[in-house]
């Protein structure tokens, strides 16, 4: 049992780290634009298909296909923002959330029209797990883990050192003050949406690498992404990472303890518990 638990922890941390990439995108958009962008699942799917096309049609290795996934999802994210969400800005966060949900459905079905419903696999050799005593871990899992960490490191450097990144943090911290200091809100919003959607796209591709690519690959993640962001505190960057790892581990461990049919409950219970006990989440100061 202890072995199974340790194995579940390993798998959970890896799954959570990958989940953290789209969760970061989701929470970044929430921090700056103040609405939950539920198109995030479809944007992850866009990224997964873009990476898949880059890999299978142009022979790109994974590290080179990831920027393709980022770019495609960023463009799709901007299209969603400008065509669906922005016109409803005056109607409030709920309307923007609903608009993003609808735009996500449109995107998903556009992919379905373009690529069909078949499952697509990346052009990768299927490798056997590495075994360390009783534990096992897949080379692909490790590669995805490293790529996810690299994405997060890049995001951190961007937010920490670049002028635009600092402007984004400023708007997230105190919008009015940032505007007074001459930050261009339109530009910051556009960059945030592009980066957030791009992160979702990379997350979708990472998940697709490990499983397969189909029109629902991102939609399957939405509940976990949302739960991770809420758990960490909506709008909190470190919170999204911590929340994602916690959700990843909880989902894996739950299968050991309960009937796997109840695995989906983990996300809902996490959201419910946070909203009841600590509405601002683990790291959130402002969401409360």
């Amino acid at each position, binding site marked *: 049992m202890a072995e199974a638990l340790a194995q579940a922890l390993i798998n959970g941390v890896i799954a959570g780290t990958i989940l953290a990439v789209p969760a970061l995108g989701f929470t970044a958009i929430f921090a700056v634009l103040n609405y939950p962008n539920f198109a995030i699942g479809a944007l992850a799917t866009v990224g997964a298909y873009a990476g898949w096309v880059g890999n299978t049609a142009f022979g790109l290795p994974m590290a080179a296909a990831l920027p393709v996934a980022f770019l495609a999802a960023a463009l799709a994210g901007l299209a969603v923002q400008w065509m669906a969400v922005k016109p409803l800005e005056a109607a409030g966060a709920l309307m923007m959330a609903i608009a993003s949900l609808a735009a996500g459905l449109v995107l998903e079905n556009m992919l379905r029209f373009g690529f069909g*419903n078949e499952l697509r696999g990346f052009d990768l050799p299927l490798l056997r797990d590495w075994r360390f005593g009783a534990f096992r871990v897949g080379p692909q899992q490790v590669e995805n883990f490293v790529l996810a960490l690299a994405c997060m490191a890049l995001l951190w450097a961007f937010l920490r050192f670049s002028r635009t990144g600092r402007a984004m943090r400023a708007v997230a911290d105190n919008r009015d003050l940032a505007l007074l200091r001459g930050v261009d809100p339109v530009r910051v919003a556009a960059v945030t949406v592009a980066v957030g959607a791009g992160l979702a796209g990379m997350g979708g591709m990472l998940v697709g690498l490990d499983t*397969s690519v189909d029109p629902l690959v991102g939609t399957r993640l939405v509940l976990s992404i949302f739960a991770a962001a809420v758990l960490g505190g909506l709008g909190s960057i470190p919170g999204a990472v911590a929340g994602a790892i916690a959700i990843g581990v909880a989902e894996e461990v739950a299968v050991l303890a309960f009937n796997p049919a109840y695995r989906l409950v983990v996300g809902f219970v996490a959201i419910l518990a946070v909203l009841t006990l600590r509405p601002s989440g683990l790291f959130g100061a402002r969401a409360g």
Partner: protein
Amino acid sequence: MTITRRIVLAGGAGALAMPNVVRAQGETFRVGALNPVTGAGSPYGSGMQRMIAAAVEAINAAGGVNGRRIELFSEDSQTSPQAAVLAAKKLIEVNRVRAIVGTWSSGVSLAVMPLTNDADILLMHTSGAPALSTPPVNAKGLGYRFQATNDRFGRAFAEIAAREGFRRPATMAFNNASGIGNTDGFRRAWAAKGSQNGEHVVYEPNQPSYRAELLRVLNTRPDVIVMGSFLPDTTIILREWFQTGTPMKWIIPGWAANPQLVQALGPAVTQGIIAVESVSNEGAPAFAAYDAAHRRAMNNQPGTANAYAAMTWDMANTLALAIEQAKSFETAAINAAIRQVANPPGEAVATFAEGKAAIAAGRKVNYEGASSVLDFDQFGDVTPDFGAYFIEQGQFNRRYVVKI
């Protein structure tokens, strides 16, 4: 002569007095085709839809049913109960169809049957859930199943597992009526053989990974895992299993272990998987007619490529023969005639035209279908045979046929 009001009225009254068939010349008998063109059933849906259309074309060419042409309305179920319910409502309320044929996947058929029951029309489906046989779902006996029940699939799995000499089978089921029906059927049949059942895991659909569920099963060291599953989840589970490097076999229903699975995973991962699918009635004349139609409509693909298309071909023919037999367009009369035209005794017929001629000559017919001999039991279920297909170098080789 001038047309007076009196002549018009007399003409109208005369027309009303004429027999049904003459008056109905412009009318048609409306049928809805509701098939999984997209979603998990998409490898089969287009073929199913086209074979209904091809059979209806042949029926109309043979003079139609009771003097009426069959008019077909086609919808996509998207292999989704919600979408199927909307489509069924449209077929029933807008198109006013008198029967719906060709639903695939138990979730869809379970959702559609209450609507067809309310509208008092027939539903012919290819779904496996045992609940579709009996009340409350099939309360009016208007549902007909052209595929084996999941329970029978489970029995076939157990026969094959015993024949292959497996001793420690575990089961994994997709959490719906079909998936659980398969594994429950297997576990019952396996226990009835006096053998011990292993770990049983029911998993949720639409997960990005099934590693945790799979490890839970693998930790019990089974020599075979029997699945009640669909294509997307099977793809992920098999990929993750291959990565673990655990030597072990699989028995999987044919709608999940199909050429699309091999395409997604490659021949190395799928080597040695046993796919179990009901076998069409391949030696029969009806199959030859279906096969020719399938090749014409589906780019010269043989009819054996899609067992469900053979079922829908049979649906159109059975329905049309029952209408001929009933000499009525009323559901109750047609329903009463279905077993008369499909079950023995009677003159074996392979096409609608043949059956129509025999019925006109006053003989009792027994339609022997392309999908099976098509004899319905008291629940409206058929019992086809099952093929054990071994995947070898990416090819599906049928090693033997199991009868239950």
